[in-house]
């Protein structure tokens, strides 16, 4: 569970947690763990969505090295 993992993976982890939470025969202990994990993942997802940056960069290759320049650059 890292902040680096793709949003999709985080979502599928969340899905798995829900399914386990909604399953029968869950111990209270496990439930508390799942709940905490779920809330953590939820926070990660929301944080990602809140990062409103919509960065637009252009990939530029100079001397065989890639670099990103802000905005739209002409080729």
């Amino acid at each position, binding site marked *: 569970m890292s902040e680096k993992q793709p*949003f999709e993976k985080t979502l599928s982890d969340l899905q798995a947690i829900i399914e386990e*939470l*909604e399953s029968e025969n869950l111990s*209270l202990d496990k439930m508390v763990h799942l709940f905490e994990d779920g*809330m953590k993942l*939820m926070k990660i*997802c929301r944080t990602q969505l809140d990062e*409103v940056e919509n960065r637009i960069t252009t990939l530029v*290759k100079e001397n065989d090295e890639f670099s990103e320049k802000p905005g739209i650059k002409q080729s």
Partner: protein
Amino acid sequence: MNIAGHSILTITQVANQVKYTLEKNYANLWIQGEIASCKPYPSGHIYLTLKDGQSELSAVIFSPYAKQLKHKPVSGLKVTVNGDLSLYSPRGQFQLQIRNLYPTGQGELWLAYEALKEKLELEGLFSQESKKQIPRFPRRIGIITSSEGAVLRDIIQVLNRRAPHVSCLIYPVSVQGQYAAGEISKAIESMNQYGEMDTLIVGRGGGSLEDLWCFNDEQVVRAIFASHIPVITAIGHETDTTLSDYAADYRAPTPSAAAEIAAEDRQETIQFLDNISERIYSASKQMIVVHNEKIDSFHKRHGFFKPHLVLEQWDEKLNDFNRRLKQSTQSTFISQKRKVDSLQDKILLLNPKTQLKRGFAIATDSKNNIIFSPNQVKVNDDVTVQVARGILKTKVKEGKIQNV
């Protein structure tokens, strides 16, 4: 039928044989000519006559093919057509069944297109199995298109509206002209090399057949197929399907549609998260309710009361013991007391003084010995006689032994 060594055929037999020969030997032809006449029928078939300086050829485009035509056949148009020769038996007329029709000049392009398509298809470049899933929640989208023009603007606009959290990395390329194919394929490779992208959009606005042709370039098609990053194409109008579109993981009809497919709407995602959140809460709450109920039911269970009951029982027992102890001691005491009383009575009876009270007397000699027999004393001996209320000092007058 056989007459004088000659086999005689019916018309239908001849027609069938000719038809067979034509279809066998004149299949998949590419023919150039001019459309002399052209008649679409309500059935959807189109009947035409093709000609060159010396000859004419009847032709038909059956409705399934007619519907797919990219260019409308009109009289006077010089065309290159692709199809099979066959015989229309009811009129004994051979005709070309056209599958593809291109204005001349483009025909050669399409011939190459069809050949390349077939080759790449055989290689599996267009197979559904090798299509990669387009991520619904990308963080970063690579866009390969012209830095000018509406395509880039449309894509960025849609992404801005739907998914402002997604960033875009642009790789500007020419999308037409002799260098386009090289640039596009290199862009795809570079984007893969650079990495850090969840999805690639390769796009171009509508244009003429020649304008779009770079997307039918083998190099470009192969680069799209080889891309590790899922590729969405949005090339030309919906009716123009390039080989790049076939090789792409997803083909979008327009650049805006490509952007919509590339990223899930932020608001919808938030809603989705809210829903998940709600489910986590309610599932956990439910779990707590269930456990609480369990605890409650334990409380009501007999087992929980047992210690109390046992204590009560013991208490009762102790009380009982206590009572019994009291009772038994009391009764022992009473019976003992009774015994003592009766003993006392007996003792009282035995007390010489009691006997004295009843009128008996005790005689003792001078040495204070009790006199039981006259033998113990002689006449004139002093004898003390004790009676109930005192003593008498006497002297023996006479002794006489009596057998009692």
